[in-house]
C-alpha cells in the first residue's frame, strides 16, 4: 500500500493556505488594520483582534530557519531520506512554518539557505513545499 499522507479538512480559515497554489501563488493571512501577518491561519488578528484578516499573496520566497533530514521510514513505502524544514518567509519574521524541501540534495541544506515555494498537488490540496531558490 503506497504511503498516503493525511490532508487537511478545508475550511474558511485555512482554504487559502492549502489551495492558493491553484493560482500559482502562496497566500498568507494579513491584518489590514495593523499589518500583522497571521499564521497559522485563524479568524482574527492576534495582535489587534481585528476580524478583517484576509489572504494576501506573498512572494513565496524565504529562508531555511531550521531543518532535519528525516532518515527513518515511519510508514511502509514512505520514501526516505527527505528534508523537513521550518521556512521563514521574506515578507515577515512573523511567518514561518514547517514544510518539506524538494528538489534538493539533503546534505547541502543549511540554515539560512534561500528557498522558494514549489507546490505539489495532492487530491484537492496544493501543498506548499519549498525548493532551493533559483538565484
Amino acid at each position: 500500500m503506497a504511503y498516503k499522507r493525511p490532508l487537511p479538512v478545508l475550511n474558511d480559515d485555512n482554504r487559502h493556505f492549502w489551495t492558493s497554489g491553484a493560482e500559482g501563488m502562496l497566500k498568507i493571512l494579513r491584518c489590514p488594520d495593523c499589518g500583522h501577518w497571521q499564521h497559522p491561519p485563524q479568524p482574527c488578528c492576534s495582535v489587534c483582534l481585528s476580524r478583517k484578516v484576509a489572504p494576501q499573496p506573498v512572494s513565496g520566497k524565504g529562508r531555511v530557519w531550521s531543518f532535519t533530514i528525516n532518515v527513518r521510514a515511519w510508514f511502509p513505502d514512505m520514501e526516505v531520506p527527505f528534508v523537513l524544514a521550518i521556512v521563514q518567509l521574506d515578507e515577515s519574521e512573523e511567518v514561518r512554518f514547517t514544510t518539506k524541501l524538494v528538489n534538493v540534495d539533503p546534505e547541502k541544506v543549511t540554515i539560512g539557505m534561500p528557498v522558494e515555494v514549489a507546490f505539489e498537488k495532492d487530491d484537492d490540496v496544493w501543498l506548499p513545499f519549498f525548493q532551493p531558490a533559483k538565484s
Partner: protein
Amino acid sequence: MASLDVLISGIGQSAIGRKLDRTGLSLTIDAVLEAMADAGLKKSDIDGIVTFPGRLTGSMYSFSPVGCHELIQALGLEVKYYTGVWEGGGQLVAFHNAYNAIKTGQCRHVIVFRTIAEGSGGTFWNDNNADDGRRLRVNDMFQYFYCMDAHTMINWMAQYVQRHFYLYGTKREQMGWIAVNARRNAARNPKAIFRKPMTIDDYMNAKMLSTPMCLLDCDPLTDASTAFILSSSEAKRDFRIAPVKIEAISGSLNKVGAWDQGDLPRMSATESAKAMWAQTDLKLKDVDVGLIYDGYTFLTMTWLEALGFCGVGESGPFIEGGERIGMDADIPINPHGGQLSEGRTHGFGFVHEAVTQLRRMGGERQVKGDPEVAIVCNGAGIVCGSMLLTRQ
C-alpha cells in the same frame, strides 16, 4: 492561622514494561492502592481524584487508557472533585489541579495518577497512514505538520535541536551525555527497562532517525501507571512516611501553541521556570536533586538553561563529559535513569523518584548528602510544568 500546605503523602507505581499483558485499569489499581497504603489512608479518606490527560479514545487510547471515571467506579470512591484535562502545565497540570483543589479547601486527600499503554498500543500518529488506503483528514493544528510529512514529534523536535546546534555550536557528542548519564544511573534501578551500560560511542553510532536525533535521544514506549496522594496539611498528620511539600508549582504554554512558531530554540520551559522561582525564597543553589524531563535528550538541556544551571546556549558544554549531571554532581540529574532508560511513564516517574529521593529511600541510587529540596520538570517544547518539592 498557619497557611495550608499541599503535601505528597503517598506514592505508588505499577510494573513498567515494554509490553505488559495487563489492562491499563489493572495497572492503575496497582499504583493507586500502593499510594493509598503508602500514605496510610483508607478509601473513605479520599475525596478527590485527578489525572492527566483523562481517558482518550480511538488512535489516542494508548496515550491515556484510563480516566477518573473508571477509577472512581472501580474503587467505589465518593469524591467531591475530579478532573482529567490535557490543557495546562504539561503533565504536571494534574498536580496543579489537585494542588488548587486542596489549597482552596475543597479536598483533603486527592489521588493523582497517570496511566500509559503505548508499549502495547503504540503512539498516537500510527493511524496517520491507515493500511486500508483510507486518507486521513486533519482539522486541528497538526494539519500543519502531518500534511507536510512531518508526522512525529521527533521531526519537530529535531529542528529545535538543529537550531541550537547552529546558534551555539552544540554537538551530538555533547547531547549524548544526557542519554549516557541516564543509562549509567539506570544500572542501579531494578525497574528500569534499559540497564545495559552504554558509552558515548554507542550513542554516536546509534541509528539516526531525524538529524541530528538518533534512537538513543528518545525514550522507550511503555505500559505503566504511577500514582500519588496529595494531602492538605490540615488533614491527618500521622502519615506512614514523612510527607513532602509542594513548595512551588507552575506551568506554561508558548504564546503560539504550534511547534514551529516558538522562539526557537527557547521553549516554554523558560516561562515555567521563571514562574516557579517567583513563588519561593529557595534558589537553585538550595536544590539537592533534579528530576528533569528527558522524553528527548534535548528537553533536559532546555530545562538546564531555563532553570539557570547554565546560561542560554551553554547546555552543550555544561553536560559534556557527564560530570555536572552525574551522581557526584552538586545537583545529580535523574538518579532513576530518566524516561530514557527507566521508560516513558510520561512525566509522573520523575515525581515518583523525587519523592523517593527526598524520603532518602533511593537505596543504591540514593543521592548523597541527605537531600532536602528536589526540582521536578515535565514536558518542554510548547507546553510544560515545573515543581519544587521540599522534605518536611
